[in-house]
């Protein structure tokens, strides 16, 4: 099918603008951030100060800094500046590694892509870590050049909704058989069959707990056994590593290669790594190469792969996804647009294209739904299904009747009752924005009851909250009461996507309607609520003030999202803990 040149040019221009707008917005955000004082940046979690250099960088460029505490919002891989000048940008570009609370050490690594002059660092001197821009503009524009190269018209056809829907019936039949042999459900078998038989594109919609990774691994194995070379992509290195490790578990002999840094887990699993795609020597038979889309950004004349597989495609921005798709004629995308979407920083971005590659393509092509969740019990699954999947998701027989196993009696029994898998522990307070000591106290009481009375290990409890400030508040209370250990997750929702626990405690922390209306698109994002509720296998306790549900945003789509929260709060069984745990709430 021919593509109109004017439409191609329009698409190219709009995608380029999207990238440029994103870069500009990032620059402006940093400008505003650096305009704040150090104290304000520290309070906002965007700066860590009073760090002392422990020694010169090691051979791999790692730098260790002594710190008495760690309050910043930094995550592994975040780009930062290490310096001590008033001009933040004079610092050394580094990437955040980790925080070791026992050793009171922060580790960062020199950014190996930085070619600028290296500022001197002095052992024992005091430094600061500040945010740095991702600086992906050049990489994304290079990648877009590949997308629009004449050799990659298949990508443009896909993007324009003109890709053929054909499939190989023979492979489809074999795929179904393979699914049955693997013990897959009917939907999982169909997904596998459609993926391996697609001549252009296959979309697999995987709600929480439906076995997406396993399905993807079986798809990869099936194709690799038939001597196909596969490019496996995801938004982050960690996500790529996860799928490679899952593949290694089901197939010890399959050639697997990581494009980029080799983590300790990959090394332990015997998965080798390489830096550059064009220099990689691939075996004659099937193989799987995993990497982010930037690894594939430069046009490669001899398209070396038969399929490109994109995992968590609901979190991969459209431009990144398009770049990844240049690596093969056929693309298989696995994702869930009802979970967390990519974070968009552009202030004047093009709404149509500022979306994930999965959500964009799902508006143009049919998808196959994995309709059984193996994680949640029936009650939890039904709430998720009604809210986000139009009632099409079911709990599997295996998980439907799951119940939290508790001892007799114990404190807070009404909240912990296994027969109410989803419950609202109402703790009224007013005017809280990012931190609620009231909720933190109740969370600590719940953790204490679960661990000490019911012997539930910390590794089966997760505490989620939208805000880093509330994480610190909760961790502080837990630490004071001797309840904090390395297995207990206290984190934001974003870090929990893909993970699960027996019990999830969700602390909303906020109770200022006007503030919530301003940040409605973040706080009430449906994907965030979905991920929060669907991490639990048998019990989820929502800890929140009634004011958290009272915002009425001025934007219609934000109001509809807030409406889901309101509807949920009205439908849930509720225990009012305000008398014992609440704060000031009346008068408004």
């Amino acid at each position, binding site marked *: 099918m021919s593509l109109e040149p004017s439409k191609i040019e329009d698409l190219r221009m709009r995608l380029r603008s999207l990238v440029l707008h994103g870069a*500009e917005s990032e620059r402006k955000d940093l400008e505003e951030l650096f305009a704040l004082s150090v104290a304000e940046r520290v309070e906002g979690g965007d700066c860590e100060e009073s760090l002392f250099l422990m020694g010169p960088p090691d051979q791999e460029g790692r730098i260790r800094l002594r710190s008495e505490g760690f309050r910043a919002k930094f995550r592994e891989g975040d780009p930062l500046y290490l310096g001590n000048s008033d001009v933040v940008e004079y610092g050394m570009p580094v990437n955040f590694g980790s925080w070791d609370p026992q050793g009171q050490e922060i580790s960062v690594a020199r950014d190996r892509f930085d070619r600028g002059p290296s500022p001197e660092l002095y052992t024992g001197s005091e430094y600061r870590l500040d945010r740095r821009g991702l600086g992906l503009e050049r990489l994304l524009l290079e990648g877009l050049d590949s997308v629009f190269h004449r050799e990659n018209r298949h990508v443009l056809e896909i993007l324009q909704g003109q890709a053929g829907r054909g499939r190989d019936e023979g492979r489809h039949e074999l795929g179904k058989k393979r699914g049955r042999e693997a013990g897959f459900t009917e939907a999982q078998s169909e997904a596998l069959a459609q993926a391996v038989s697609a001549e252009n594109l296959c979309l697999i919609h995987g709600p929480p707990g439906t076995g997406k990774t396993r399905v993807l691994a079986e798809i990869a194995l099936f194709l690799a056994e038939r001597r196909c070379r596969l490019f496996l992509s995801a938004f982050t290195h960690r996500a790529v590593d996860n799928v490679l490790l899952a593949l290694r578990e089901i197939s010890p002999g399959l050639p697997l290669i990581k494009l980029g840094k080799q983590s300790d887990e990959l090394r332990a699993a015997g998965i080798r790594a390489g830096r550059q795609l064009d220099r990689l020597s691939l075996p004659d038979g099937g193989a799987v190469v995993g990497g982010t889309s930037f690894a594939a950004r430069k046009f490669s004349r001899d398209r070396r792969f038969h399929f490109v597989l994109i995992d968590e495609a609901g979190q991969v921005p459209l431009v990144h996804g398009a770049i990844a798709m240049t690596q093969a004629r056929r693309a298989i995308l696995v994702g869930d647009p009802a979970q967390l979407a990519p974070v968009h920083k552009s*202030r*004047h971005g093009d709404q149509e294209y500022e979306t994930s590659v999965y959500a964009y393509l799902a508006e143009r092509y049919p998808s196959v739904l994995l309709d059984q969740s193996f994680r949640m019990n029936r009650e939890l699954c039904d709430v998720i299904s009604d809210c986000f999947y139009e009632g099409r998701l079911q709990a599997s027989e295996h998980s439907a009747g799951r119940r939290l196993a508790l001892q007799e009696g114990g404190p807070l029994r009404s909240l912990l009752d296994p027969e109410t898998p989803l419950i609202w522990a109402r703790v009224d307070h007013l005017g809280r924005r990012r931190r609620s000591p009231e909720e933190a106290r109740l969370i600590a009481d719940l953790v204490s009851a679960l661990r000490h009375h019911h012997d539930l290990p910390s590794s089966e409890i997760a505490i989620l909250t939208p805000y880093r400030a509330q994480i610190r508040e909760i961790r502080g209370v837990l630490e004071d009461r001797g309840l904090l250990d390395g297995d207990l997750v206290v984190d934001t929702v974003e870090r929990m996507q893909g993970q699960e626990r027996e019990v999830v405690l969700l602390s909303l922390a906020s109770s200022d*309607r006007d503030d919530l209306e301003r940040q409605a698109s973040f706080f009430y994002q449906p994907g965030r609520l979905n991920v929060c509720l669907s991490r639990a296998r048998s019990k989820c306790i929502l800890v929140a003030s009634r004011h958290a549900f009272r915002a009425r945003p*001025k934007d*219609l789509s934000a*109001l509809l999202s807030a409406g889901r929260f309101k*509807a949920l709060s009205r439908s849930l069984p509720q225990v009012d803990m305000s008398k014992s745990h609440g704060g000031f709430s009346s008068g408004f």
Partner: protein
Amino acid sequence: MDASQLEAACERMRGFVIPEAASRDRLTGSHVYGFLTCEHSVYLDFFGDKERRRSPGPALARLLARGVAFEDEIVAGLELIEPEFEPGDFVSGAEETRALMLEGVPGIYQAVLFEPPFLGIPDLMRRVEGESRFGDYGYEIGDVKSSYKPRADQALQVAFYSVLLEGLQGVLPQEGYLILRDGSEERFSIAELLPALEELLEEMGDLFSGRQGSFPHRSFACRDCKWRDVCAEGTGLDWLPGLTRAEQSLLRSEGFTELEDLARLEPEVAAEKETLSETLLVRARLHAEASVQGCAVPRRRPRLKDRMGQGCPVLIWSDAFDRRYLVFGLLPPGGEAQVFLAMDPGDEAAVFEQWRSCLPEGQSLCHAGAFMSSLHGILLAQGMPGEGPSLERRSLDLMNLARGGFVFPAPVREVSEVLASLQGNEPVGREEERLLALEDRDADTLRRLATEELADLQQLLLRLDEASV
């Protein structure tokens, strides 16, 4: 209307009661719409002294008239029947409406949905397939709006009408719709809006019954509000900008009512007040200081050192109603203000290019915030979205910097207001005059106002420069 119909509708309204003092009034879709903007204004609609309401200013009146004209234009293109009844006789109007619905007419203009105390007169009611008390068809609600994007208050108004309609036809419409300024139809689920609507009506009931106090809350919306003069008489906390309603409530609960007390507050006091954080008290004190002094109070140093060159004030003004970009201005360093007007639609592209070609190289483009949206709008309209980032790179939002660097005694929307506040003078806004001039295509006035605005931007840049040193 029979008892079961009334009961069904009232069940939706959760037993809402308007106290006797206001029983002559009806609760209408406009109240639902207005409640999202300001709850207190709706409270005053029922309990305030109506003699003290302000009439809309000339610009707002003109905008409202344009909205009515747009609605007439849309309606003229649809086959609609209007129920006939004496003005104010809503009982007859409701009966007429029901009769039209029994006939199964395809569309009704300004149907009357009346279940005392609730009154709804939606712009459009459209026949749709599906079982109802009337047979194998029912109706859904639509409204005509002169905005380009759908808003929450508009959708809630339609949801309110839809619930009244449910009382009549026995079935809640699945969807409602808005016809927007560009003629497009925005559809949405009514069921998904019900939680917000029910909560809104509960809160209205709490306010009207006195279970909850009603207080003014200062925002940008106060500028055009008919009750502005009444609220402005309030002293103390009620009229203090920069605080959320929750924060005002917290401060009241801790005994703060007078601005002078807040302005003298020592932050260490926070240690004694469990509900008040130091951050809130610092912010409240700054706002109180600004209000007491009647002028802007410094908050933090604006960061201007990344500015390119001396800076070139720029502006783009549009007639938002028609999405026409009419005025382009710049004030090059050391030069005279240049104002380009595109009075005819066909002039827009050429005038924009002319303005763009005059932008001096190596200079920041200093603007008042709305400029960037207008710039992107016109670049999109001219098919040049790719040009946006390079211009954005040079842009400097002086209003944003001013709001970050200072706390103002009142919400500020215009550069002239910021300058007046920095100098401790009464603000003199030009927005009203500008909106009228844009609508009237008054070239002379627009040139004058644009020149003044550019001069104000230059002044503001100098003030921010001084403050950043």
